[in-house]
């Protein structure tokens, strides 16, 4: 037990949690925006995967990390628009369009990297600049706190900042109010003169940007190259985190943190000779437990209404 506590009660462990939760936070924030705008977010996994491929590719082509991140964001927006066009204008079923997007992403990414890098597994043979980690001046010199909070990737800090920005936008600006009203009841919004399509596409652009950043973090921050299927379910975990956080940016932040803890714990416990099979189920058990609690609370709240 003491070995267990020694493993998790370290600044290093908390640092790891923040790194692990970053892509989940981006995914969850993206899902939150989709959901607030009344659009299904099941395509998030595929959008993130394609963005995690275009990031290093554009970074390689422009030889600049900013070029790569912009490439990933633009890809994210275009894919979200594509999803929006197919579901909003052509009236395709959202779930089916999302699944199609996810399936397409697996094959398309491999096709493109083979064309660009001559390899089918990864872009490791391309020299693509990455987004750096940064030490925060004053903070890094504070004992423990500095070890935990300083030295993360720029995109990690961006994810945290964006949590606050989105909270402000959605609850304190007319734009946020209109997106939410379009999402909750498009006809009612239209009746008071809101251009529904315009706000749907603004929603898609914001959600696509966040998914693009999440993808870029995976291949330009977490590791320095794209490899096939590298999102590995983080988009779907993001959907669960969004549900668990009840659509509230800060709730989502905490939920992402919980998944970060579960994942980091799974990594550490293996080294303490806990049975591997059991440990690998931890993140999923937490998902099920958390969603059960969430659903229970929601059903109780709905009964009250």
């Amino acid at each position, binding site marked *: 037990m003491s070995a267990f506590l020694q493993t998790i009660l370290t600044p*290093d462990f908390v640092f790891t949690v923040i790194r692990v939760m970053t892509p989940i936070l981006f995914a969850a924030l993206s899902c939150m925006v989709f959901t607030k705008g009344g659009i299904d977010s099941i395509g998030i996994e595929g959008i993130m995967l394609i963005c995690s491929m275009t990031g290093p590719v554009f970074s390689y082509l422009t030889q600049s990390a900013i070029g790569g991140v912009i490439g990933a964001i633009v890809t994210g927006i275009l894919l979200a628009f594509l999803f929006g066009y197919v579901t909003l204008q052509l009236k395709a079923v959202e779930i089916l369009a999302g699944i199609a997007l996810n399936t397409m992403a697996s094959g398309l990414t491999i096709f493109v990297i083979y064309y660009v890098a001559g390899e089918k597994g990864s872009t490791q043979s391309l*020299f693509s600049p990455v987004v750096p980690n940064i030490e925060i001046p004053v903070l890094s010199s504070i004992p423990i706190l500095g070890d935990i909070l300083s030295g993360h990737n720029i995109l990690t800090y961006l994810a945290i900042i964006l949590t606050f920005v989105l909270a402000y936008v959605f609850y304190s600006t007319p734009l946020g109010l209109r997106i939410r009203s379009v999402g909750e009841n498009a006809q009612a919004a239209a009746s008071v003169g809101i251009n529904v399509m315009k706000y749907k596409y603004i929603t898609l652009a914001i959600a696509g940007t966040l998914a693009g950043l999440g993808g870029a973090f995976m291949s330009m921050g977490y*590791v320095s190259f794209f490899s096939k299927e*590298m999102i590995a379910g983080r988009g779907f975990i993001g959907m669960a985190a969004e549900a668990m956080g009840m659509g509230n940016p800060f709730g989502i932040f905490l939920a992402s943190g919980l998944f970060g803890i579960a994942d980091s714990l799974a990594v550490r416990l293996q080294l303490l*000779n806990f049975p591997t099979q059991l440990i690998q189920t931890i993140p999923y058990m937490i998902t099920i437990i958390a969603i059960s609690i969430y659903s229970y609370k929601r059903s109780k709240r709905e009964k009250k209404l």
Partner: protein
Amino acid sequence: MKKRILTVLLAGAMAISMLAGCGSGSAETTDGTTAEGALSAVFVVTGQLGDKSFNDSANAGITKMAETLGCTTKVIEIGRDQTKWQPTFEDLAEEGAYDLIITNGSNAGELVLSIADMYPEQKFVLFDMEMEGDHPNVYAISYEQNEASYLAGVLAAMVTESDMEFANADKKIGFVGGDEHPIITDFLVGYIEGAKSVDPDIKVYVSYIGSWDDTAKGKEMAIAQYNQGVDIIFPAAEQAGLGCVEAAVEMGKYIIGVDSDQAMLFDGVSEEKANAILTSVLKEVGNSLVRAASMEMEGTLPWGTFESLGLAENGVGLADNTYYQANVPDDIKAAVEAAREEVSSGAVTVTSALHADDATSQAIIDSVAP
């Protein structure tokens, strides 16, 4: 329009390269005086070339068969769509234009065995497969990855106890697997036995990523092990293992590659990654195919059986490249060479997780648990 020109150019280039291939092939057989011994072989790629792994290694072997043995060879890529595999193999067997049909047994083994039974006149060679049952016209090759892993274990144990730049005082080495799987356990058991042959008290940290693709999680696994004082890790986890390489570079540690000569993949791209990969454990698919072809020409290939090729037959090995030569101290190279001799000659037998029972493998893993 541009695209169309490109397409035409590419098609032209492909046609020319194919003609060139035919030209040299037929020239060998017509000019060669011992044409009656030469074979014709077709390599059916289940998937595509360019995987920097098995298929490319096999393709290199096919090229070598044409160059050194004078075989007439052809390579057909049939993609991943399994519905197209059966007709291709049936057509080739029906046609009977090639002496040997060669393919990857771990992908298409079952299918090929059923077709082989229908066409007893056609001979098939399946690599990376342990064949069961009675198939007199099939020859299968499997690879003893435990023997090459044994050498990797010797190297890792020597490195962690050396005064190399990134080696620390702890006698700890690491292993990261994609998932618990018999072949991965085979890698692990060989690795542990090699390490124990150097130092019986060595500790081996073992983690499983639970995925073959999750590079980021692979990196986390490696970081966690390196933080425990491990200074060299052997990841057997396909793409996910690339994350371990990344962790090694960032933390200033060592890594042993797998499946392909990974250091050479980074040659000229990232010197620091290439330098972190001391060597790689290889299955020499190409060598084994050349061996099979030359045995067939001598009439000694044991049809109807499978052979496990280890270090003695050059079926597996450690990558020896410029980075290995530059980064690994001479005494470690000598120790690895000595171990290779011992295993090849049969003086040392490496346990195989594929043939031993689970309890034996588990006991070996537990014996070095930290």
